[in-house]
Every structure is written in structure tokens, then in C-alpha cells.
């Protein structure tokens, strides 16, 4: 049959992609044919991936997000020191620069510190001493740890060759703890709060949003009013109230879970609305009606036809919900009602930077904030890209 009847130029881009490579060579014709075939046989996920791939910023952000989660996964190995390791000798030590070339050949080193007394304030302060060289190595042995709590090791990606020598690439805090190590350890908590919180929200959101959108009527009205009520409560006071109710005697792990539950208490509303909206839109789609006329039962209609059609939308919504969670946790911990030391999260670390005088003398205490900003931006860009790619048939 001739393909003149209303062919939408839906896949011009896949064809064009190959058209460039085929322009020169005749052999490329075969390649082009196979690629068009690919597009015809490509499922929705494949198409979504192709569309996502065109979104450069989102792809780059995706790589950043993956890297951040890898950091969270291998925190103990990547951090030069343990989360709580301190050294009274190096309080507020400034960041050192990592030198890569040692006299023209590859060799890592940092310069040592020299203590100087400020002539005006008579305060002790550190200055970098260009005379001393502290050799730095990769895969060095340092403080022992248990990776994921069961693999014992003491190998760190980077650290001073001679254990005990000072290396503070991102500076040190008031107890002489390495900021870099603490930010890396904090990554694990902050990033997983996002994931766990969103997973909880997702369960609530899909169930309640699904009920709301699919059945409509009274159930819909009830759930929507609950959502509106929850959204009407100012979030920070609500969180603070709930967080204050957590008994201070609880072990840190339980506090952590309580916090995620508190965060998802409000977080599910957004996802429930997304799910409800998709259900409403999908319910009257012709192909859903067609499935019903084919004799499909309700559950089959939902799981075989409707859910796959908006799974990608949910993934995008989830990606956009994670940064909100991370920010919420940071806010709570910063205010001192969230996670508490000795747990290390970005919010907990930023608590140290509450004092303007400390920030003025030791601005590197704000570095956890940079980590938060980078992560939230990357997740938002990724989420935007995923949202665009979620519906590969619209263009």
C-alpha cells in the first residue's frame, strides 16, 4: 500500500540520523534500512530513550546523578577519612590544593600547614607551607571501615601515603574533621532519604491517586479534599511539629526512617495528583475502550493497557520529587529538628555553617550547600528530560 495517506513525519529524526551517515557511502543504504526497521519495531521504551538522548542537558545531568549515587554507594571507600575522625591539631584548617605534577612527572602531593599567629587578633591560624610536601597516593591504606557494614577494608581511593599526615582537600571543621570525607558520607544519607521518601510517597500516591482517578465520584472528591487539606498546611511548621515528636532516645537509624515518613506524608500528594490525572486522561482513550470491548477485565485493563502507558510519566514525576525530598531533609536538619549528629547528612553539615562568623573565617563549611545545589539541579534537569521523553508519540 502506498504510504501517502497522512503519514505523520513522526520518525523523521531517526531517519535523518542515518541519512547523514548514508550520504557518502552506498553501503550505508542497507544501514539506513535497518535503522528504519528498528524504529518500526522499537517499543515505547526504546523510543523514549531515543528522545531522551536528544536532550543533551538531561543526559549530562543523568550522568551526574549516577555519579552522585555511586558516591553514596561507595562512600567509605571514596572518603579519605571516616565520618567522625577528628584531629584537634587541625581545627578550621583551610583547603589544600592537590598537586598532580611533581617536578615534571606524575606524582600527587599537597603542601603542609604552618601555624601563624595573626598579628592583629592574636588568633592562631593555618597557612599553607609551600616548603613541606605531603605525598598523596591512590588506593592507600588508612582508617579501617566496613563497606555496607560487612566488607572489612582499609583501602581508600585517595589519602596521604603516610597515615596521620594532614590532608584536607576541602578544609576542616571546628573539630578538625575532613569536610570532603564528611560531605561524601553525608551524600549517602541525603540521597537515600530522597529515594526512600519518594518510594513511600509513590506507594501512597499510586494507590490513592489510582483510586481517585479510576473510580472518580465520591472517592475522588474525598481524596482530593484530603490532598488539598494537606497542601494547605504550611510544610515547615508541620514537619517541625512532627519531628519534635520523635523521642530523642531513638537510635539514629530509626530517626532516619521517621524523618522519611514525615517527609512523604506531604510528598505523596503531588504524585497522587499526577497518577490521578493520567488515569482520568487514559480512562476515555479509544484504545482503553477497545480493550474493554475486547472483553478485558478491569484489572487487565489497568495493568496491561493503562499502567504501561503512564509508567514513564510516573518515573519522570518521581525524578522531580526526589530533589524536593532532599531539600526538605536538608531544611529540617539545618533547623536542627531533622537528623542529628552523629548521623552525617548535608543538612546536618550545614548546621555548622549557621554562624556568620564561622562562615566568614571558614567559608569552606558551605561546601555541603554546593553539593545540595548540584544534586538538586541535576535531578531537576534529568526529570525535565524524562518528562519530555515520557510520551514519545507526541512531537
Amino acid at each position: 500500500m502506498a504510504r501517502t495517506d497522512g503519514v505523520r513525519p513522526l520518525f523523521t529524526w531517526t531517519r535523518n540520523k542515518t541519512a547523514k551517515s548514508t550520504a557518502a557511502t552506498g553501503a550505508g543504504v542497507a544501514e539506513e534500512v535497518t535503522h528504519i526497521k528498528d524504529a518500526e519495531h522499537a517499543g515505547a521504551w526504546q523510543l523514549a530513550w531515543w528522545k531522551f538522548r536528544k536532550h543533551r542537558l538531561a543526559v549530562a545531568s543523568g550522568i551526574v546523578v549516577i555519579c552522585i549515587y555511586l558516591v553514596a554507594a561507595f562512600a567509605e571507600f571514596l572518603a579519605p577519612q571516616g565520618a567522625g575522625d577528628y584531629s584537634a591539631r587541625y581545627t578550621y584548617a583551610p583547603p589544600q590544593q592537590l598537586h598532580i605534577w611533581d617536578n615534571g612527572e606524575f606524582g600527587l602531593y599537597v603542601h603542609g600547614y604552618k601555624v601563624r599567629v595573626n598579628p592583629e587578633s592574636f588568633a592562631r591560624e593555618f597557612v599553607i607551607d609551600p616548603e613541606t610536601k605531603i605525598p598523596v597516593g591512590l588506593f592507600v591504606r588508612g582508617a579501617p571501615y566496613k563497606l555496607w557494614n560487612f566488607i572489612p577494608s582499609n583501602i581508600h581511593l585517595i589519602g596521604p601515603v603516610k597515615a596521620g599526615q594532614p590532608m584536607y582537600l576541602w578544609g576542616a571543621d571546628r573539630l578538625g574533621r575532613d569536610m570532603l570525607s564528611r560531605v561524601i558520607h553525608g551524600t549517602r544519607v541525603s540521597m537515600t532519604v530522597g529515594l526512600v521518601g519518594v518510594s513511600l510517597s509513590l506507594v501512597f500516591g499510586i494507590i490513592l491517586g489510582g483510586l481517585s482517578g479510576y473510580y472518580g465520584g465520591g472517592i475522588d472528591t474525598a481524596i482530593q479534599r484530603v490532598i488539598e487539606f494537606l497542601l494547605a498546611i504550611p510544610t515547615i511548621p508541620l514537619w517541625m511539629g512532627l519531628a519534635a515528636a520523635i523521642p530523642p532516645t531513638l537510635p539514629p537509624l530509626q530517626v532516619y526512617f521517621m524523618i522519611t515518613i514525615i517527609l512523604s506524608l506531604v510528598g505523596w500528594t503531588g504524585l497522587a495528583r499526577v497518577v490521578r490525572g493520567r488515569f482520568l486522561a487514559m480512562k476515555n482513550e479509544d484504545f482503553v475502550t477497545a480493550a474493554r470491548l475486547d472483553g478485558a477485565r478491569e484489572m487487565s485493563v489497568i495493568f496491561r493497557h493503562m499502567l504501561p502507558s503512564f509508567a514513564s510519566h510516573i518515573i519522570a514525576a518521581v525524578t522531580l520529587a526526589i530533589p524536593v525530598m532532599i531539600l526538605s531533609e536538608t531544611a529540617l536538619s539545618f533547623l536542627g529538628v531533622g537528623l542529628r549528629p552523629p548521623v552525617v547528612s548535608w543538612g546536618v553539615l550545614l548546621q555548622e555553617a549557621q554562624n556568620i562568623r564561622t562562615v566568614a573565617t571558614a567559608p569552606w563549611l558551605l561546601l555541603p550547600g554546593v553539593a545540595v545545589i548540584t544534586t538538586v539541579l541535576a535531578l531537576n534537569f534529568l526529570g525535565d528530560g524524562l518528562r519530555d521523553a515520557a510520551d514519545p508519540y507526541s512531537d
Partner: protein
Amino acid sequence: MSEPMTADVLKVEKLSIEFQLRTSVFKAVKDVSFSIKRGGTLCLVGESGSGKSVTARSLLQIVDKPGRITSGRIVLTREAEVIDITTLKANGPQIRAVRGGKVGLIFQEPMSALSPFHTIGDQIDEVLQIHLHLEKAEARRRTIELLRQVEIKNPAEMANRYSFEYSGGMRQRVCIAMALACDPDVLIADEPTTALDVTTQAEILDLIKRLQQRRGMAVLLITHDMGVVAEVADEVAVMRNGEIVEKGPVEAIFHDPQHSYTRHLLEATRKLEHNSRERDDRTASRIEPVLSVRNLSKYYGSKQAADGSWSGGLRAVDDVSLDLYPGENLGIVGESGSGKTTLGRLIMRITEPTMGSISYRQADGVTSDVLDMRGAALRAYHAQVRLIFQDPFASLNPRMTVKQIVGDPLRIAGMARGRARDGRVAELLRMVGLSPDTMDRYPHAFSGGQRQRIGIARALALDPRVIVADEATSALDVSIRSQILDLLLDIQTRLDLSFIFISHDISVIRYFCDRVAVMYKGRIVEVGSSQKICTSPDEPYTRALISAVPSPDPRQKRMMHRVRFAPEIADA
């Protein structure tokens, strides 16, 4: 060209438009040349994707990005003044003076062409104020005069209304008034009547024709409908794949077409001018109907009084009774809002009726009430009475392969598994004229016509006895339309099916159906053989409807001698 230059208001020479895509260039329009004489009508006709709309838009330099004019000239002549539109800067003052001033444009969708936030009068005033620098009061006076010219009743009062208070036909009249506000030399109408009902279409085309004669304006009409072309064109240019394959006077194009594509288009249109099923009128009374609908009604928002009478609300389907006999094609024809689609949905039990009954006679002669069916009985009914949807894009799940889509009814019914199911799907695909090799592809790999074939294959999967086709061919181009109709007729004779064919398109109904029921405002006004309905209907509404259908022959312009149905004119 041989015509003297002075007669051409608009002359397009070797126009090419390209769309710069990410890695390649899509040539939407290739070396297109045509010209329009003062007072003349040129129809640019072609199927979807032929580049006709892009060509029209380029005349005002409103081609959507990333499209751009790569070569050619568009010369607009007004007395001594000669403007080459292609040389004007996009969005510069000169091109803005052309847009709406020298060249007026009417869009296809009168719904979205008007702003819902401003009154109709304000919108037309704005055009006059910008182009003619009129004072507010003077502009309003002109606006009212324009609305009177496009035959809007009570123009002074209607000018203060909003677009949502206007019907589709009235909105298109407003768009015409707006396009004509500054006495343009050229009026471009891009599918101005495609979104309208056939009677409204006739009114609008008639209005454009009369205004054109009065003002001596040139009209460029973009359309896909050969019938419309025959009714209004002086000259015709046939476009295909971005090129004009043939152009000439309307007589020559229709009675002596040179290009095979023109002939193909005409054949596809003319084929639908007569009935395909030249058979005797069935003596229906002897056969039991397979489906019979009695006093079926669907009211929205109506309230029932204590005495059982209904008041208020919308009567989408009102007291409809129909019989469908085995092997018969029953057409249901009506304009938008006549309730024909709701009737189809009621028969399919997608929507529940307010009252009435539907009885279905099974193959073994047992008759059962469709409205009482639940669970397994309803599933059995849905296996035997199938629906073909209007939109071939929305009705196929984009996330399933053709094999899954066509095989799904079989899977659910548990009729065939594995190889056997694949074999059945292949057989169904072959039956609808698709290669079984395409089974593993997704719907997006298919064109509109091919998708509709897939939808038909799905409908046939469970060996149905009745098929309800709801505007099954409306979304398709004319040449594909007749192919699909022939396919359905072929399948019908092979499988002994009965069809309920719902359409707004008289020509499709005439070609396909044995009997026709005409619906108007939820009621059936007339039922009869398609021969009778299409040639000598009894009811005045049907007469008006039939006479408004454009005839694809410029020597028999039907529309201009049409019969008018009084209530309809009041609405349009």
C-alpha cells in the same frame, strides 16, 4: 505563463520551502509556481502532507519554524505597487502591513482562531485600528457593517458577544469578516470548511463566493475535497509531495485530467457518488433483525418528574428505533451533535441509555436483551458485535505490537495460544490487506490507512456478526477512504457481516449502505433505502442535507441550488 502580468494579483514563482531538521533537510514545497487573477478563485488541492498549507502560510511569511523559504518569489501586485513578499523582513512593518491588510487569511479551526477573552467586536475593531488607524467609534461602525456583510443577525448586539457564544459556522463568518476588514486583494482560505457540517459548509462557501464577486477579490482556497473544488474553483492546482503535479482551469482538470494522480483523486471521489451494492431492496419483513433498537433514549442532565415525563437537559438520543437485518449495511447519517455517535456507544453498551431497549438475536435464533447483559453474557455480546473507531491513532495502544493488539481479543477469550494465535493473527492481517511480516511492529510504524486496517483486523478477530463503524473513514484521505470501504465490503461478503455505519459524510454512506437512517437533534427523521435518501428524500431536513453535499463535477454545481432547511440557517 501566457496571461498578461497585470491581471495577476498574486504570482508565486518557483517557490521552495525547506524544514531544517536536526541532521537533514525536509523539502516541504518544491519549485511551486501559480498565479491568481483579480476576482478569480484558485483551489490548491491535495491530500494530507502534500504541502498545500505550508504554501499558503508562506504567502504571509508565517511558516512555522524551522521551515523557511529557500528560493522563489511571491509577487503581490496592487495597481502600480509591486511587492515581493519573500524579500520582506519577517515581522517587519512591511510584512505586517501585508498580513490582514493586503492579504487576508481564514484558518481551518474557527474555534481556535478567535480569542475567548475578547468580544468579537473588539477583535475586529483591533484589525481596523491597526491597519486603517480608525478611531474606536468609527472602527466599531465598520465592524458592525462587516458582520452584517457576513450575514450575522443583529450585528450591533452580536459584536458585544464572546466567541464561545457563537456556533462553528458563525465563528467562521467572523473569521471571514476579520479577514475582509481591510479590503484585501487576496483572501487565503486554508480548509475553511473542513471542521464544519456539510450544510454550514455550503453556507460558508456560498458567502465567500458572493463576497468575492462583490469586492472583486482573488481567493486562494486550500482544500482536500474535490467536491468543494468543483463547486467554487476557477482554476485548480493539484499538489502532491510538495509539487504541483497539474494545474489548469477547473473544467479541464475535472473532464480532461492529464496527470495520473489527478485522475486517481477524481476516481476516488467519483466512486463514492453511487452505491456499490446494486442489489434488490431486501424484503426485510421476512427476515428477523439481528439487532433491534426500540425507543432508545439518552438524556444528559434531564430530570424526571413524578408523572414520568422528562424535562430540561440535553437529549442526545431521543426515542430512537432501528432494525439491523443480517447481511445489511445500515447507515446512520447526521451532522455534528445529532447524536449518531452516542447511538453507536449505546448499542455497544459503552454508555448506558436512559431508557429503551436493545435486543440482539444470536446465531442460534435466541433473542436476548442487551441492556440486561452482565459479565460473561456481555463479553459474549462484545465478541459478536464489534466496534471500529474513528481515530486510527488513538484506538491502537501505542505500547503494543500489532500481534499483541490483534491477538488480544483472542488471548482474553482464550481461543488460541502460541503458534495457533500467531497463525490466526497472520490470517487476519492478510484478510485486511497487510503483510503478516509486519506483526512485530508497533502502530507508529504504520500510516493512518494501515492503522485503520489493523483496527479492522482486531474487530474481526472473534468472528463477529455485527460491526459498528463509528466514522471509520473520516480521518482518512479520500483515496484511502475508498480503499477501506472496499475492504469492508469485501470482508462483508466473505464473512457474512452486518454493518452499522455511522458517518457525517453522505458520499461514504451512499457508497456503502443499503439503508440509511438520518438523525437530527437526537431523533431519526427519516429511514429509507440509500438510493431513496440520496436522490429523493421525503423530509425537508434530509433534502437540505443532501442538496448541500458538493458535487465533484463543475458542470453540475449542486450546492448553489441547494434547498435550505429553515432552523438550520438560524443556527449557522
